């Protein structure tokens, strides 16, 4: 018999329940109030007293209200029909909800039970399968999705029956599997999975090494992220975190993009709803929303569900990864999630860690980032979940617990800088503070040598050291004045400005400049490095700045034109003439 309980205490969304039977940690329960059932999660148990966090407003709840325990943790329902959906943090389909305002206790089914899917079996009866193995295939939004042996299945099973190719709904039994004891298990196209548990239905999780192209130059060129990699973007407000995140989500070379809007502005989600139907995936030419799933738990939605939303998003990404797909998961912002944890820890009267965050914050963050990765599936195919989170550091100070703990686990760090944002140098990524640990991976270096060029990483390091020199000289010029340093210094400084303006700055609002494919990034990097290698001779420092301003202007125009178009080539000709003109002067 299911465990029942009675509410005995309430503080904000923390409710104490006296239970009449066994309960487990993180079990879901429903509180009956006002003809509604409020979904809650067990977060602490002391004797008969069970502490639950309620995913809804607790207004007008009272001591004595009844509670039913569901005997399962928070789960997602996985199956075909999730692409281009807008979910809340608990995977309720927001479009199915009635009315303008969210109604407390209204839960909507995340999938469509009536829709028929064209199912193609991939196994025959008699074969042995384990959790995660592909039983069949359906096509959704032009993508081949796999129907798998549910992740919760343990050990070996034999396929007893599998349906023939045909149209079925998601609840139809498409296969019957027999376990070692001979017990039969019917399998449909859907399965449930507990969101806080990592899906491990793969053979191996090697170090990631394949470049994940984002089209954003200060990422791909200078600090690249890889398929199955992790990265984070901290930045004070107004430095362009969201614009950068949206740019990556739009342009990345991924099969599936999951965006978890976690405790951020509702209008930012609305922007996605408004824009995406008009945008095209640059890699497939199909509509962008066809590959996108949005998990929206905006800042005004219940706080406890904010924490759930990132896990919901992660579990969905692992589901697609197990199909052998490249998944990109973005969460904006992980700080809001950490704040939700802080609110609960505070209400539980736990002893606080730094800045009143819970003591286990670091473990929670590490565990979450650890779920991303590149995997080799049991059938030898590969899949990946790449995770990029934003962090909103309080007061813009990177020495705060969420940033510091994230820095320990994320392999790429994209530091957005107030000073660059103030100067309108967007994206405001400080290339020197930022890093990508993948640049040091031998397997990544090998991959790049093969796919871009053998000397690529050397070139990237070259422009980085030029940026360092440029910065040092800029500081000296500030102190000593323009004529207080040799003219050569000006040249070195302006070469770093050339790199900054042409490679590191990118106009996210310009259709062409916003997306730079790898061949074009390689071309531009070579072009700029070759200019930097020339020792120009100048009479005075004014000549230096005038000359480089001209070059910058021409190169920027190139960035705004189609690659290798006539216009592009004309600018290139102009650029070469300018360079030749200057070179002639010194002759």
């Amino acid at each position, binding site marked *: 018999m299911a465990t029942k309980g009675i509410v005995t205490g309430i503080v904000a969304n923390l409710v104490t329940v006296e239970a009449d039977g066994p309960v487990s940690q993180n079990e879901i329960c429903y509180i009956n109030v006002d003809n509604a059932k409020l979904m809650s999660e067990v977060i602490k148990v002391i004797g008969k007293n069970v502490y639950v966090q309620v995913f809804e407003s607790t207004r007008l709840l009272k001591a004595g209200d009844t509670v039913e325990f569901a005997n399962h943790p928070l789960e997602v329902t996985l199956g075909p029909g999730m692409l281009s959906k807008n979910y809340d943090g608990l995977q309720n389909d927001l479009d199915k909800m009635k009315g303008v305002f969210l109604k407390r206790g209204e839960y909507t089914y995340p999938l469509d039970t009536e829709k028929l899917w064209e199912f193609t079996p991939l196994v025959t009866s008699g074969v042995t399968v384990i959790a995660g193995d592909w039983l069949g295939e359906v096509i959704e939004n032009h993508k081949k999705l796999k129907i798998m042996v549910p992740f919760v299945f343990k050990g070996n099973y034999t396929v007893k029956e599998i349906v023939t190719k045909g149209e079925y709904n998601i609840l139809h039994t498409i296969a019957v599997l027999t376990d070692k004891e001979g017990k039969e298990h019917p399998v449909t196209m859907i399965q449930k999975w507990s969101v806080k548990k990592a899906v491990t239905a793969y053979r191996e999780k090697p170090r990631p090494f394949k470049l994940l192209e984002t089209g954003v130059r200060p990422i791909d060129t200078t600090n690249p992220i890889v398929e199955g990699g992790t990265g984070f973007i901290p930045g004070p407000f107004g430095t362009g975190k969201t614009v950068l995140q949206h740019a990556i989500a739009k342009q990345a070379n991924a099969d599936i993009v999951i965006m978890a809007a976690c405790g951020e502005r509702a209008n930012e*989600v609305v922007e996605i709803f408004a824009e995406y139907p008009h945008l095209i995936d640059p890699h497939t030419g199909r509509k962008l929303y066809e590959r996108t799933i949005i998990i929206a738990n905006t800042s*005004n939605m219940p706080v406890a569900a904010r924490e759930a939303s990132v896990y919901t998003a992660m579990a969905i990404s692992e589901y697609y990864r197990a199909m052998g797909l490249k998944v990109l998961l973005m969460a904006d912002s992980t700080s809001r999630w950490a704040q939700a944890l802080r609110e609960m820890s505070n209400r539980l009267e736990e002893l606080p860690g730094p800045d009143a965050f819970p003591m286990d914050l670091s473990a929670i963050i590490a565990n979450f980032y650890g779920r991303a990765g590149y995997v080799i599936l049991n059938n030898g195919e590969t899949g990946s979940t790449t995770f990029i989170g934003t962090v909103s550091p309080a007061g813009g100070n990177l020495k705060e617990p969420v940033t510091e703990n994230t820095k320990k686990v994320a392999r790429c760090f994209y530091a957005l800088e107030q000073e660059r944002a103030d100067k309108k140098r967007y994206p405001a990524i400080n290339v020197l503070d930022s890093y990508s640990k993948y640049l040091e991976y031998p397997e990544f270096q090998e991959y790049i040598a093969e796919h871009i060029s053998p000397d690529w990483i050397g070139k990237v390091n070259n422009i980085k050291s030029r940026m360092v020199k440029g910065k040092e000289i800029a500081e000296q010029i500030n102190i000593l004045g323009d004529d207080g340093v040799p003219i050569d210094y000006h040249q070195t400084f302006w070469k770093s400005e050339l790199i900054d303006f042409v490679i590191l700055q990118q106009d996210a609002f310009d259709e062409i400049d916003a997306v730079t494919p790898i061949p074009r990034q390689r071309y531009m990097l070579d072009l700029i490095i070759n200019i930097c290698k020339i020792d120009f001779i100048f009479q005075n420092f004014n000549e230096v700045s005038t000359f480089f301003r001209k070059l910058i202007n021409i190169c920027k125009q190139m960035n705004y034109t189609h690659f290798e178009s006539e216009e592009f080539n004309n600018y290139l000709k102009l650029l070469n003439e300018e360079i030749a003109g200057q070179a002639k002067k010194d002759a």
Partner: protein
Amino acid sequence: MAKAFQKVYTKITKITKATCSVKAQGITNEELAFVAGRSAQVVKIEGDEVVLQIFGGTEGIPTNAEVIFMGKAPSLKVGEQLVGRFLNAYGEPIDGRPQPEGKEVEIGGPSVNPVRREQPSELLATGIPGIDLNNTLVTGQKIPFFTDPDQPYSEVMALVALHAQSDKIILGGMGMSNDDYLYFKNTFSNAGVLDRIVSFINTTEDPSVERLLIPDMALTAAEYFAVEKHEKVLVLLSDMTNYADALAIVSNRMDQIPSKDSMPGSLYSDLAKIYEKAVQFPDGGSITIIAVTTLSGGDITHSVPDNTGYITEGQLYLRRDTDIGKVIIDPFRSLSRLKQLVIGKKTREDHPQVMNAAVRLYADAANAKTKMENGFDLTEYDERALAFAKDYSRELLAIDVSLNTTEMLDVAWKLFAKHFTIEEVNIKKELMDKYWGKN
């Protein structure tokens, strides 16, 4: 007198500065109550002990005080009768007129489903070019003034209220000085706009915890006009720093562990719940929030402005320009995140370019000024940039200027032509051909 359905108790077990506890049965969370006649709200239930937050403070409350539970959350009667009224934090009249009647609605209601929102796209002209030119507002936006306490922010708010093209204006005053309250009241009466204004006022003389009710009251009224009447509603909230301070007092009294700057750990969620009520509905109704966040010594890294900045869609800064002796909207630090949705689309085509050119030239003037202060010689261009900056500041940025969105662009073109050459202004050629020297 208590009515039949109300529960009355007299056993108070604990009294702190802001809360008291009472033994009671069947009480619901967030329920409204009266303790010795003072408004209170249930904030915690532990078995049969109920903790009440007393909005008016606990001074003089005896342990045998009568506690009446109302069985419902705090509410407001919404309807046309609200218009033109000045009410307190409980929605009771402070203008000597009768209690407005209407439909009773719980305050602090649910959030709008994000998929039912519309992307904001309608210009909200304020008539103040310092806002409309560089930091154009959009209906459904939420934006605060970040200001030091000595800036004339109440005057600017009143100006915005008078000029803004909106159907209703809801003023929420939190810890407002009595002088400012009277200033708003007189300004609105003199301008004859009381027929579109509703005010909820908590002055410095009122108990500080009462302030916590003001935003919810104001936004509940706003939702009535925006949802049911499809009106464009502008909500003015001043001052949100006082609101946050009241939150800190209550969380302190409830023994919660404070986070940064002694603010409660839930500050972000608490502020977001208010600001996210700003919304554009598909049927034309909208709620726009303009708030005031006073800073201490211009420090925007303090928890209140910092959390606010992460929630709102930009911020406006007031600054005294000593060169012209007037308060201006600072064009460098102010930002409206939603302006891209309307400028050059709902305003004249040249708006984005004119805006950028003017700010760029103003920045040249700022550099020239630094040069001058450091004792370097000024070039002829520097001199002209400085002269432009003065005109630009006086004729466009000062808060006492009133122009519509076409006039302000014309003024900008006039100033460009007066001080600069076509090359120096550097605007797209087709716009130059159309507007240069046409005034």
